[in-house]
């Protein structure tokens, strides 16, 4: 069992933890953090599993880069909406 599969398994654990956090947390900020964590877990699997099969693979690495940028944009948008929501008197932990 190579180190790459370990990465993937760690990714699985991270995903499981962040699924727990995402569902159980009430505060919207915590949920957002859980989402970002979960993203990292997915990216670990995404790179780890294929590289476990046939060595360094540029394709999933590029995919992960794309994924990160998308996740960053989504997080940014979520933060903007969240702040606007809180400033208009909304409760961030409903």
């Amino acid at each position, binding site marked *: 069992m190579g180190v790459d599969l370990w990465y993937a398994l760690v990714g699985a654990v991270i995903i499981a933890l962040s699924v727990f956090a995402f569902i159980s947390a009430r505060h919207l900020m915590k949920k957002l953090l859980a989402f970002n964590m979960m993203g990292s877990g997915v990216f670990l*699997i995404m790179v780890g599993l294929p590289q476990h099969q046939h060595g360094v693979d540029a394709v999933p690495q590029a*995919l992960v880069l794309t994924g990160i940028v998308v996740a960053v944009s*989504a997080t940014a948008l979520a933060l903007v909406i969240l702040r606007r929501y809180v400033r208009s008197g909304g409760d961030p932990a409903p």
Partner: protein
Amino acid sequence: MIPILLIIPLAFAILSLLLPRKWTRTIVIPGLILQLGAALILCLTIYTEGPQDYALGDWQAPLGISLLADGFTVTLLALTALIAALCAIYALFFLERYNREQFYFWPLFWFLLASLNGIWLAADLFNLYVGLELLGLSAVGMVALTSERPALKAALDYLYAALFGSLAYLAGVALIYGAYGTLAIPQLSEMVAGNITTQVAVALMSVGLLLKTAIFPLHFWLPPAHGGALAPVSALLSALVVKASFYILALIWLDVGALAVTVSAAQLMGALGAGAILWGSWNAFKTPQVKMLVAYSTVAQLGYLMMLFPLAIGVSEAAATMAWQGTILHLLAHAFAKAAMFLSVGTLVLAIGHGRIADLGGVSQHMPMALFAFGLSAVSLMGLPPSGGFNAKWLLLQSAIQSGQWHWFVVIAGGGLLTAAYVFRIFRVSFTETVRHEIQATHPMLQLSALLLAFIAIGLGFASEWPLRLMDLTGGGTP
């Protein structure tokens, strides 16, 4: 030819972002005409020459990304162009009162259109993920446009659901790539076997997509988002956006992962659909707000789409074909009817200044066309003839009979009555004459575009053969 359908909306998105404000509105109509024209030309091309694929950048899949246009795809492309065009015409007049919002509406609108077209055409699992994200973010942006607190909350819930859903989908994609080494859908559908990795991947993707499609019990985000947004946004969201994730779901269950899914899992999906029909109808029956009623109606109607899985998996080919045809028709009919319904209700709310169902009395004299549009679209939603909705229901019923699945027969036949129970709430009130509000004048185009959409939903009852014939043109893999 195929990428034109992506280039047009992307280019117009940029134009409407950069051009001075007064131009943003001017370019809408030419853009819509171009888009609709391109979609129709592609329809004709596919109809005459059969399915086509297009290797982007000249890199063949699996190294590069391909676009695939078959009969199903072009039907959806044409549907998108048509509904978007009518909603956009409506939005041009509706947004006159929303000075700031309309400026941001148009870039988001065009990006939304681009992502929809991208999803219909995609033949690559990861590309679908990017498309879904583009779709989700532009939809969320549109929901949040008014910056009012309920809208912001709805947008947040929607965004979180969309993000969680996308990640679950992406996790599935990661497993698939790890197991098969490719992301190209046509290639995968030949290779994918029924092993545990694939099953987990399909399960993950399904959970994510069910969340994005707002299938009961993961529908919690949809009613506030669709019911709270501006009317043209609600129409686009309910008519098109939720269909995109359903399309991917169907693609995964019936094409890519066909060997990995089991009959009992398909029955479970059907059960979710039945739950959606019951729960959505019940809530639509209870809600005091007219826009929420329409939004819950979407929850219920999406349940019918889920009938595809039990009716098409593990049954004879004839029954599966009918289930497919019924689902497509339902998708089309619901798209037109729901868009019409949201637009007509939006006009009513705009004119009377509130959305309380109990106080809708007297509208029938002032806004007969909007109410008539609502009525026609309701006919299609109830599955009463003559309408696209009826034909869809008929095919689904026939498919259930063919495969002897009587429980789904009952659900599909009974669902129409539930729909009737909540839509007739509106009619009932609209016939009362006690007027409890000032009625403001609205632009006639608002009522007209809703009416046109409703007529298409009804007309689909007489022209169902066209989409079904187009749909028959599939390229190998897709059933």
